[in-house]
């Protein structure tokens, strides 16, 4: 029974793909209530009946977080190559061309500058609908550039992650993006600029195992699947049922891996508060004071 529930929640969610053809009405994946699709979208993809948080397009995520008219896109100036000439059941460039056209962006990410409750921030938003939000060279490079540009411009960094992990089609170069994004975060740390990571459903693999869990603060959306290995891989490895709620936000909060689980409607004010609390602080000690303390 527990397992059944688990799988029900794991199954791809029909209503959450903004580009999928859907009727005016849909049945909530979680509470089965009939909901008016427009209400769901207006409610930032949260079921008005049961509070179920759907996966959400990157643009809607930016609307949720950026003050009106403040978003200035940085991403989109670079696109993917095919360094491995990767072919599975179809060549990687063909797969990419199709997905790029469908979602009108070069890769699985949007970044840019914005004001968040008047606080200057840089936003990284991953797009799970675009090849599972997988991180290849472009996604890694966009994240690294955004961190560096935020550091230069004195902005806090907010990253909303949704990704299956590193992108297989770019092989070891995808793996290296874990290192690249991590080292780029140093530029923010050097300026004591906050990096807040928001883990959305789902965040797994190489994204969880790199920049996403290196936030000064780590938040998650309710009931998001978050982990290193996916539940299916774990089940195949250990050949046992997984405990109820395993790898969900609330479970990870109890295990001490998150700062908090925050509902989508509360996310923006919460982020603004954190940034304000982290950014007005003691002055840097003067070099004289440091020397004096050392004596």
């Amino acid at each position, binding site marked *: 029974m527990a397992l059944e529930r688990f799988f029900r929640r794991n199954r791809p969610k029909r209503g959450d793909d903004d580009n999928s053809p859907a009727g005016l009405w849909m049945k909530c994946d979680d509470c089965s209530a009939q909901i008016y699709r427009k209400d769901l979208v207006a409610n930032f993809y949260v079921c008005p009946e049961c509070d179920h948080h759907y996966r959400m397009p990157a643009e809607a995520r930016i609307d949720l977080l950026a003050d009106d008219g403040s978003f200035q896109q940085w991403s*989109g*100036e*670079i*696109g*993917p*190559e095919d*360094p*491995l000439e*990767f*072919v*599975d*059941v179809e060549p990687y460039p063909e797969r990419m061309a199709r997905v790029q056209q469908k979602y009108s962006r*070069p890769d699985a990410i949007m970044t840019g500058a914005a004001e968040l409750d008047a606080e200057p921030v840089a936003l990284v938003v991953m797009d799970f609908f675009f090849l599972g939000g997988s991180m*290849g*060279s*472009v996604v*890694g*490079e966009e994240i*690294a550039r955004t961190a560096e540009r935020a550091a230069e411009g004195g902005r806090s960094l907010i990253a909303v992650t949704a990704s299956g992990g*590193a992108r*297989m089609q*770019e*092989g*070891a*170069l*995808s*793996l*290296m*993006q*874990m*290192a*690249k994004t*991590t*080292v*780029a*975060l*140093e530029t923010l740390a050097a300026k004591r600029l906050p990096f807040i990571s928001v883990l959305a459903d789902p965040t*797994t*693999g*190489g994204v*969880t*195992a*790199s*920049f*996403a*869990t*290196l936030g000064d603060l780590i938040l998650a959306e309710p009931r998001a699947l978050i*982990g*290193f*290995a996916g539940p299916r*891989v*774990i089940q195949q*490895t*250990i050949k*046992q049922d*997984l405990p109820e709620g*395993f790898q969900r936000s609330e479970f990870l909060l109890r*295990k*001490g*891996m998150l700062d908090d689980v925050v509902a989508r409607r509360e996310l923006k004010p919460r982020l603004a508060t954190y940034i304000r609390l982290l950014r007005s602080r003691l002055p840097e000690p003067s070099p004289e004071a440091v020397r004096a303390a050392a004596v």
Partner: protein
Amino acid sequence: MPLPFEKPIEDLEVKIRDMRSYAAEQNLDLSKEIQLLERRLDTLKAEIFSNLTRWQRVQVARAPGRPTGLDYLQTMFGDFQELHGDRTLGDDPAVVTGLASLEGHNLVVIAQQKGRDTKENIYRNFGMSHPSGYRKAMRMFDLADKFRLPVVTLIDTPGAYPGIAAEEQGQAWVIAESIQRMSQLEVPAVTVIVGEGGSGGALAIGIANRVIILENAIYSVISPESCAAILWRDASEAPKAAESLRLTARDLIELEVVDRIVEEPVGGAHKDPEEAMRRVGEALTEEIDSLTYLTPSKLLEQRRNRFRKLGQVRSI
């Protein structure tokens, strides 16, 4: 047990052995014939091993008898002193850490350890570490910085362990932290991929100034089997996935993921572990020598730039 494509080599070796014992038994001088066969054996080995497919190299990288982390620590390095425990959760046998020396350098060493037989494999969890293993590695990074000792890491793992406890203890979190901590080392760091470089679980201890790989070792974002299961929906397509993933030493040097290849003795490191380890020791010594005189800030900068620039994108 020879690997499938090693069968002709094995057959010829048996033949030479038989001929030797026959000669000894019968008191015959067959040295000319034996010499001829041995020369043929060398050519055959060279031929087979210079034309391995990527999937065959995966099999060599995983071959039983290939020198493991501990073999290097106990044979190639001197003064090896194992140090245990992560001071938080326990002591992960899949990662062996300690102090050692190599050609006049005192070092901190971290090695992922698969088993050399079934019993050890079970004890070592097949080289798949839990969060505790990465915590132990991070403790060693601290030790290295504090005492200004260069770090050598030896990578050989199918990947970080995907299990319940591992997830509960934050497998992803510790891998990220370990990547970050290693990138901040103020001492020289050299990584050698000696066998299997399995994804994030390998990268966690692979943020070095120089990354060396053995000729038949592999380094990949995902195992060919898992990749095939996802993209081909059939794990038995692993040979195809291995081709697509470009996970061999030669592929990786082209992608600039690794800096140097150590050639293995003909027939693979598992055929002549001593010689393989000697070559690794030589390469390691050269690399450590060349990094020793860099300042901490230069080492940091070089290491960060090395990883910052990896990847291929095009401007739009």
